[in-house]
């Protein structure tokens, strides 16, 4: 065999997912020390900053509740603007967490074990941030429970023909199932934390949270099946959630909103943006906590490839929409799409295209897929681009109503901007808390993919 083909053979052999000659104990140590060690000063500093930003969010929401939804820049005809943009943005971010934990699990992509816990946490926090916007957009937030089909005094029921109600069910189911999935995955690792805890209080708290897990073979049997079923349920769930979000727009008759490709297109976009966010956060965490042995270049390379794939699918959807808008021969459709690209919001449209379609194309090149700086910058560019995608879809379709007399333009108010800014504070604050108290890498799962874990001496199936 030539040296070229030997090189190929090396590249084709299954890569090690955990580096640095680790054994089971060093894995436990490496992950536990992040939460067990003395809280670093930098953490306090970061926490102070993010919680201040969260306070801004609180202040803005309080101001909105006290004054009215009019403090946002929403107007006629643009009744939905930053609020729904931010909602879709955050929900989308969450989707990568479910993709990594569920879909990659079903596809036996073992590299997921190093990043799934982190990504699932991201899902939960992103869903929490997303929920804020529709919740406060209802205006009278104190009666938001009317959204649920509860028999209350007026004897009326929510309207199940409304896509907004499907959203209520989809998002609350998604939040609940993600929480269950995350928690089930955490149980064995919390057991590890319990067994390592020095103080009595910690032992009790972790002990209660681990539900008395004792790694029993009789328990693992049901546990593994339960985990697989949850993955199997989460996979269609994640598709359904963003599909339902897309229904908010697509069941209408507004040009640019009503198009049949919306459900899968939204799902692909969500996964795309979510992976970008995981990448951004993971690169930071990897650097700060020195997780190079767990989040290896193989992991990052795979994530780049998924971003390339989903970014290209999103590009396919943009192109299809554009083509069909022309092909339809429908004057409104055609106008909407030309207006997006060349109208008053052309700047937003071209930001969207260049960030989402063009920038991930860099990942065709292996050298750029192994350059941390490029990855970090591109991941942030994609985050920006995906926010603009939702903005473009929502605002450009609304600002040109069917009647030219009803045309308008949307400009955000300071409340819009600070509410969005503040939601990042909430997201990051929750993240910082998570890092301090829970295992950020799925310890038991990582051990399971190490070569020593295989009793028959075969390293993989």
């Amino acid at each position, binding site marked *: *065999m*030539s040296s*070229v*083909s030997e090189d*190929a*053979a090396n*590249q*084709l*052999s*299954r890569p090690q997912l955990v580096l640095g000659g680790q054994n089971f104990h060093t894995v436990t140590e490496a992950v536990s020390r992040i939460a067990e060690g003395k809280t670093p000063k930098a953490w306090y500093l970061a926490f102070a900053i993010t919680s201040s930003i969260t306070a801004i969010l609180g202040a803005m929401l309080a101001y909105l509740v006290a004054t009215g939804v009019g403090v946002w820049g929403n107007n006629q005809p643009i009744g939905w603007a930053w609020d729904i943009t931010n909602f879709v943005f955050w929900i989308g971010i969450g989707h990568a967490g479910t993709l990594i934990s569920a879909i990659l699990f079903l*596809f*036996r*992509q073992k590299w997921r074990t190093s990043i799934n816990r982190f990504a699932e946490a991201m899902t939960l926090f992103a869903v929490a941030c997303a929920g804020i916007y529709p919740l406060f957009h209802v205006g009278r937030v104190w009666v938001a429970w009317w959204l649920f089909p509860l028999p209350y005094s007026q004897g009326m029921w929510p309207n199940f023909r409304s896509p907004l109600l499907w959203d209520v069910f989809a998002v609350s189911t998604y939040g609940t199932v993600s929480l269950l999935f995350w928690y089930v995955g955490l149980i064995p690792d919390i057991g590890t934390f319990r067994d390592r805890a020095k103080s009595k209080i910690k032992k009790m708290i972790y002990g209660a949270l681990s539900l008395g897990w004792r790694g029993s073979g009789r328990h693992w049997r049901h546990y*593994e099946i339960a985990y*697989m079923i949850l993955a199997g349920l989460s996979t*269609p769930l994640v*598709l359904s959630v963003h*599909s339902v979000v897309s*229904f908010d727009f*697509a*069941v*209408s*008759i507004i040009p640019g909103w*009503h*198009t*049949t*490709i*919306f*459900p*899968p297109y939204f799902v692909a976009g969500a996964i795309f943006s979510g992976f970008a966010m995981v990448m951004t956060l993971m690169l930071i965490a990897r650097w700060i906590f020195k997780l190079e042995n767990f989040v290896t270049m193989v992991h990052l390379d795979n994530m780049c490839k998924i971003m390339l794939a989903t970014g*290209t699918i999103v590009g*396919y*959807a943009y192109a*299809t*929409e554009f083509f*069909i808008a022309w*092909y*339809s*021969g*429908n004057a409104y459709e055609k106008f909407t799409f030309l207006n997006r690209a060349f109208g008053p919001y052309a700047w937003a449209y071209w930001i969207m295209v260049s960030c989402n379609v063009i920038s991930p194309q860099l990942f*065709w090149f292996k050298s750029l897929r192994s350059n941390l700086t490029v990855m970090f910058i591109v991941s942030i560019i994609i985050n920006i681009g995906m926010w603009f995608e939702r903005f473009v879809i929502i605002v450009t379709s609304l600002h040109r109503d069917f009647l030219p007399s009803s045309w308008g333009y949307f400009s955000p108010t300071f409340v819009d901007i600070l509410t969005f800014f503040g939601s990042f504070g909430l997201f990051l604050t929750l993240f910082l808390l998570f890092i301090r108290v829970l295992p950020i890498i799925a310890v038991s799962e990582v051990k399971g993919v190490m070569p020593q874990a295989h009793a028959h001496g*075969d390293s*993989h*199936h």
Partner: protein
Amino acid sequence: MKVTDKFKLESATIQKARTPLIALAVVGWLVSLAGFAINRDQFYFSYLVSFVYVLSICLGALFFVMIQYVTTSGWSVTVRRLAETVMVNVDILAVLFIPVAIGIPTLFHWSHPEVVNKDLLLQKKAGYLNTTFFIVRAVIYFLVWILLTKQIYGNSVSQDQNGNPSHTQTNAKWSAPGILLLFITGSFAAFDWLMSLDPHWYSTIFGIYFFSGGGVSFVALLIVIAILLRRSGYLEKAITVEHYHDLGKLLFAFTVFWTYIAFSQYFLIWYANIPEETIWYIHRFEGSWKAVSVFLPLGHFLFPFFALISRTAKRHLVFLPAMALWILFAHYVDIYWMVMPTHAHHGPNIKFLFLDLATLAAVVGTVGFVFVSRLGKNAIVPVRDPFLEESLKFENV
């Protein structure tokens, strides 16, 4: 692990498989020709259904193979050669496209200038929907597909000879942009050959709908082929129950995916209720077509969903291929349902005709014959694939 399976088809087996296929093809073509003489219009529509049906499955195979390469999948290596041998038949389908091209005036009423002159919408679309560009596009699609399938198949087969693992990498390099190319060409092919039958109607998801049906049917076909080989004494150890279980999972997942896409298209059009879109479904809810429209969610989704949900079903080597055959049938109904209601002479009722069966026999027989001949030329498993060992040892957790 030592595998004692025969990796090369014996000539007796090839003969045994080719005889019925060639008979099918000959009878199919003869009856089709007779039908063509009697009812030319019907022939073209029936032929289009059969052609698109088989083509969608071959494209499904191409997609499947490229995905396996891109993800460096280990479990699927033992079934990959079968998939590669299915996909490579797009070259025969390029030849079989000729009757469709000849039938353009019958099939597509946008091809008649006198119709277009009276129709404002068709005038707007004339830059795209015209006979010349239609044929140019078809040639481009087939060139792309033939290029991809020949490259990947060729590399895979060369690896059998020289065992060079770099072929696997080359194929992975072809596959990544290949998937993108397949998506673009396949979507436009679906727009051209199916959607433009009703040239006023449009749906952005249509390309994905076409792929999802082809994908699920290909997985079904793969199961059927593997089981037939098993019955003839091949690949009993290379394709184990574990592989069938995985193929069963894929069959189940693709069925759900098809449903998701089909529902998205139908539901959004149902809800928005815009006449220019609903007309497509209204045609399919008229007369006896309604029964077909009701059959699809039941037969293409609910029945396979409940039948395949259990682990036992997916590991049962009689039940699983039976369900696979059912899916292949349901996919045929799906394509038939997309094409036939637009056939003006058909009216609001189904008239399932001998020509439908004859053209199907002709296309399936021809492609099947070439498939078996190709399968006999090379090993039926990529014998020197770097991940073969992994695939042979594969077990579901």
